[in-house]
């Protein structure tokens, strides 16, 4: 992996991510998560296991996938949309290197903007760095990786990556994943929760997959999406005159 990572591509990608107002957008959801946690901690709602509902349901089904969607589709998709990607591709840099580097930058940004706030929110909710906080952190780290692989691939496959990504998150994961057990096998949210719950052991997280299933599927999905993204980027083409 280290040999495929390109520092120049990473630098340009980071500059692009923080140079646009989009950087404000992907800082917003985790701020909301921490604020909501602070409010609930202060309000101390009796009875309900609210850390699991907020940090698990809200954190893993809304904050994590949506932030990853914004980041994952922008690290490469924005350059494809405005055509500036041509300047990068008109060099001898391997397409696999472009994909892996942008995926790594996207995953790192998502970890910083989601996994770390999940840890902070978990510590606030439980009053310390216990199993729940740490489990949520590790689960969010895994989710950052897998979601970014998926959304980077989408941004190469289609110009409507955000729309397709939203359909996946809101329909496939949020709706079907809760009612159809087979759908969980293709749910990145469930992989993340399965990994989180293996550490947290918190029933309110509603994790539907075991650790081994979550890990295996997570690795398969990450690898397959990156391979597909590389193949498609290798076939990137510019249309001609009036076509």
């Amino acid at each position: 992996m280290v040999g495929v990572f390109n520092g120049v591509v990473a630098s340009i990608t980071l500059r692009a991510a923080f140079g646009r107002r989009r950087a404000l957008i992907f800082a917003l959801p985790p701020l909301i998560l921490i604020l909501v946690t602070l409010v609930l901690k202060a309000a101390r709602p009796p009875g309900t296991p609210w850390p699991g509902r907020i940090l698990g349901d809200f954190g893993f089904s809304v904050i994590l996938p949506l932030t990853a969607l914004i980041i994952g589709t922008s690290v490469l998709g924005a350059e494809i949309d405005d055509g500036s990607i041509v300047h990068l591709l008109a060099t001898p840099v391997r397409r696999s290197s472009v994909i892996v580097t942008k995926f790594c930058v996207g995953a790192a940004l998502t970890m910083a903007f989601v996994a770390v706030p999940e840890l902070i929110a978990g510590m606030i909710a439980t009053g310390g760095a216990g199993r729940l906080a740490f489990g949520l952190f590790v689960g969010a780290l895994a989710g950052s990786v897998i979601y970014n692989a998926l959304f980077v691939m989408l941004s190469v496959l289609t110009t409507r990556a955000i729309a397709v990504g939203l359909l996946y998150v809101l329909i496939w994961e949020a709706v079907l994943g809760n009612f159809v057990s087979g759908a969980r096998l293709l749910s990145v949210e469930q992989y993340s929760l399965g990994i989180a719950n293996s550490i947290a052991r918190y029933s309110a997280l509603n994790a539907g997959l075991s650790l081994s299933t979550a890990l295996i599927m997570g690795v398969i999905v990450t690898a397959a999406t990156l391979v597909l993204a590389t193949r498609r980027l290798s076939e990137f083409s510019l249309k001609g005159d009036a076509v």
Partner: protein
Amino acid sequence: MTTIELRNVSRWYGNVVAVNDITMTIGPGVTGLLGPNGAGKSTLLHLIAGFLPPSRGTLTIGTAAAWRNPEIYRTVGLVPERDSVYAFLTGAEFVRATARLHQLADPQAATRRAIAIVDMADAQERKISTYSKGMRQRIKVAAALVHDPEVLLLDEPFNGMDPRQRLHMIDLLTKLGAEGRTILLSSHILEEVERLAGTIQVIVSGRLAASGDFRAIRRLMTSRPHVFLVRTSDDRMLGSALIGSPAVTGVELTRGGLQVRASDYGRFSRELAAVARDRDIRLRELLPEDESLESVFAYLVES
């Protein structure tokens, strides 16, 4: 010295044929790729640049296929038409990043040299978002030249440039072509191509309509009479004498002189001096009126 070879190259999108069975060789020097809007110029340039696969036929740069071969960019520099460039970078950062992506031994020196070639040293530390269109074009050219490529592909390079910048670009490309590089530029600004390109490739409706030196192409177009403007000491007498020649299809007295339409270029060239001498008419000036690239191009597009 690198040659670009196309053999029976076609490219279609469903029922739309954008490029139709083109065979051509582009060698060292400057070649102009001309055609009306929608003719297939950009499609052809993208095929050559490796950003589009041919639907049929073969396309090589040197001995290597262009499609799905990032290694060709070690010898190819591309200046795309689209204005999009990493606007958040300064000009120097953009060119230096390109130099590093090419894994050049000394990216800093290569960047300085490339920026100097396009005369952008004064603006290199400004963000590209603050550049005019002409400045963006020049910084794109710098990035395309930073690795000293043998082949340079430019899609509408004069877009957005003022006359001074155009002259500078013409001088630059002329110099690069004289160094033995293979330069292909697509343009609809005929005056610039006329001054710059030794060879033209004219694309009309996806087909190669003509190829070669545009003056030679004009002479080969025997179905079209050549038009000359002749200024003499007695235009009327010369006109009445020339109309009797089988090589002349028409004469017209104009304010600027005698306009002669000659169907046989060679015979007319030989007869004109003899006819003038026999009638004691002094020839002051003889100008071809349709040997410009624009007229050649117009003929080819109409036919």
